[in-house]
């Protein structure tokens, strides 16, 4: 089956999700539609001295040693396993297509530096020269956990994906970008199926401090579950969270030929780089509007067809203002009546993983014909005139969804999902 542009129709046949709300679609969907927050005080490491001491850590998953690579790899594997098992594509350990992985930057973290440092007797002072002089014996997993390629290598081995796994980042739009790469690969006939995974396990003190120094994080530490307040007047930043999601993406023909259940259609995606500033959008909104417009054009979709927007909705003053601006620009007088909600009000902001997590939630929204709410919407921002599905989930007819993702570095991406092929 081809779309209106003569390209293969792209479908999703398996999804997986792990967030602070739970592991798997069932738990996540139940909690999201109950309007419950997964944000809590961080207990994994001491937080004394941090400006923000709350987050959406996934405390039911433990890895040893804890570092970004090993934790990201673990939650990515869990999400991918759920998706691959549901899709039933290929055999166990032999997935019939490539891997597109959105993941956070990997670096050597302080516990590793400390381990190298203390592997030799020291005197009063130390520097990088001491680390370098002692580093040689630290190979294998110690080293791989410091390398960008490690998470993709691990997933490719576990699931038997084909070819060189592509690991990518477009900051907080990464999950959406990974899905775009899969769409493109199938459309150009390179593969019939792809495994898309997005995971982020980068909550450790240094990353939290980095975001705090940019004044990006909410500091509402006293009531963690109330801290993520997208579109509210008193929103004060996003809440960092861990999470992973995976999608098995196929051509419609391939999915039908093997008798797979189709969970939904990816009609298209679009993106546009902003050249204004490293962390802020150009106030003219052209790049955000451009990404959403490009997605609609790629999908062959009129704005009127969109029933619901799964917002980027981070809860930073800047993001929500600009997203509102763009929705207004594209949907005109319909903007204030079109349901738009932010999963981040409950899950927190899973950074690299958010675009894929929200893709999975968008598909669940169409499957259940029910829209998860934006919680903590107690004091509306009068400057943002949108139907944010406040606080309580809502039954609705949802056949086509727009999902937005924006990130530092001028990254803007938007995806269009549908229940049925157009």
């Amino acid at each position, binding site marked *: 089956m081809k779309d209106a542009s003569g390209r293969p129709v792209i479908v999703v046949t398996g999804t997986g999700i792990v967030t602070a709300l739970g592991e798997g679609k069932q738990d996540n969907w139940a909690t999201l539609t109950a309007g419950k927050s997964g944000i809590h005080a961080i207990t994994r490491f001491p937080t004394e001295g*941090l400006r923000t001491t709350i987050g959406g850590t996934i405390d039911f998953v433990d890895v040893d040693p804890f570092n970004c690579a090993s934790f990201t790899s673990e939650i990515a594997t869990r999400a991918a396993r759920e998706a691959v098992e549901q899709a039933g594509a290929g055999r166990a350990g032999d997935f019939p297509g490539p891997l597109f992985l959105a993941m956070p930057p990997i670096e050597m973290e*302080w516990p590793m530096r400390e381990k190298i440092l203390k592997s030799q007797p020291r005197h009063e002072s130390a520097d990088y020269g001491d680390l*370098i002089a002692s580093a040689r014996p630290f190979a294998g997993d110690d080293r791989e956990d410091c390398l960008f390629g490690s998470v993709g290598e691990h997933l490719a081995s576990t699931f038997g994906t084909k070819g*060189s796994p592509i690991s990518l980042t477009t900051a907080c739009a990464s999950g959406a970008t990974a899905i775009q790469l899969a769409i493109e690969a199938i459309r*150009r006939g390179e593969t019939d199926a792809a495994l898309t995974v997005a995971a982020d396990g980068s909550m450790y003190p240094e990353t939290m401090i980095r975001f705090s120094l940019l004044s990006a994080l909410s500091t509402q530490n006293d009531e963690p579950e109330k801290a993520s307040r997208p579109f509210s007047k008193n929103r004060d930043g996003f809440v960092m969270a861990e999470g992973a999601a995976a999608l098995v993406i196929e051509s419609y023909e391939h999915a039908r030929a093997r008798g797979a259940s189709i969970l939904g259609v990816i009609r298209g995606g679009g993106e546009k780089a902003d050249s204004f500033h490293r962390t802020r959008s150009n106030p003219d909104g052209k790049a955000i509007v451009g990404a959403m417009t490009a997605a609609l054009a790629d999908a062959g979709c009129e704005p009127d067809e969109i029933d619901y927007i799964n917002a980027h909705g981070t809860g930073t003053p800047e993001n929500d203002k600009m997203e509102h601006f763009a929705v207004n620009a594209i949907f005109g007088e319909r903007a204030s009546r079109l349901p738009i909600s932010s999963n981040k009000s409950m899950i927190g902001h899973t950074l690299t993983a958010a675009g894929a997590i929200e893709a999975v939630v968008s598909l669940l929204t169409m499957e259940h014909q029910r829209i998860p709410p934006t919680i903590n919407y107690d004091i509306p921002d009068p400057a943002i005139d949108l139907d944010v599905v406040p606080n309580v989930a809502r039954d609705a007819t949802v056949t086509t969804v727009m999902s937005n993702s924006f990130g*530092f570095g001028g990254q803007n991406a938007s995806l269009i999902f549908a229940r049925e092929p157009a």
Partner: protein
Amino acid sequence: MNQDVWITGIGIVSSLGEGIDQHWQALTSGARPVLDRETIPPFAIHPMVELDLSKQIPKRGDQRQMEPWQRLGVYAAGLAIDDAGARDPDLLESMDMIIAAGGGERDIAVDNQILTELLSTNDAVRTLIERLSNDLRPTLFLAQLPNLVAGNISIVHGVRGSSRTFMGEEAAGFDAVRNAHARIAAGQSRICLVGGSLNAAREDMILLYEMGGYNWTGEEDSVWARADGNGGLRLGSMGVFLMLESADHARARGATPVAAVRSVAADRCAREPGAITSSFGAMWQSVSGGTTPANLGIVSGATGVASQAAEELAFLRVLDAPIRATATRIGHGVEAQFLASLAFAAMCVDNAAMFAPLDTAGVEQPANGACDNVLVTGIGHWRGEGLALVTRANI
């Protein structure tokens, strides 16, 4: 796949100089490698030539917002845009971009202070939180995020199409070229800036390669002859960007090609003995279509790790073509290495000649006759292999 993919611009900076001409001159003249043994002794690195940054990054404020690896990338990207004659606002508005990136520099002074304090504290996390919160520059994070090379290229040069950043050491480089090539060939992109950069003068980078013993500290320059232990690599500072463009798009705007990229492949193998040779062999079938092109040359991405070099050579020798491994001359550029090899391959095709052998080990033999096709190899120092076939553009 119906569009020819051309290289219409090259931006390159390294220890050999700035731009195509200086690099071709250095490679053909047989100059010795430029090495810096003073910055991070006892390690030798290939240092960046002195650049007048303001030529490509005019605003001081922009320069300040970046660390060296980003400046090298943004500078080389600007050279590629200029070389392609693409500094046109309408063209930049729809230009795509794929960057192969690692992470950015750390604040070594802050880290060293913390390392010292860690020796005496019994509460490491508290020490960390206190020092990092008080001592880190707020904007340093933006100089560390991999996708901020792309972000800065957007800001400085105005590239505003799609913007994607690939990671994963050397594989990021060949995945970026492979993906850009596939999109252009299929008509999903018309013009795409692809590149990467590495600042070798970083203690945190030397540390990473010292884990497991990957740094080469011997005297031997040739990556084919680093026989002590398992050999090793010497990092080299570089920034390399290519403008890849569909032939139709280039013709329509009157741009002339340096060369064409006929095919690209990338894969991974388990790295058991013999696996690298087999992986290259299988990819060669896909990039060559089973026929060895006439007047073939080879630009190898060999890093200097001896066991891997031996496996790569076992594959290359079958092709019976002159081999040149440029890491001998400019060092290993990790994410940027495959881009650099492609740039050198394009120069060879453009000049219809291979440059002189770079080693004295006898692996690299003088080329007899013309060079119309160049096979580029890329090899990850711990994972991933890539191939590309660079040919004359069919104007």
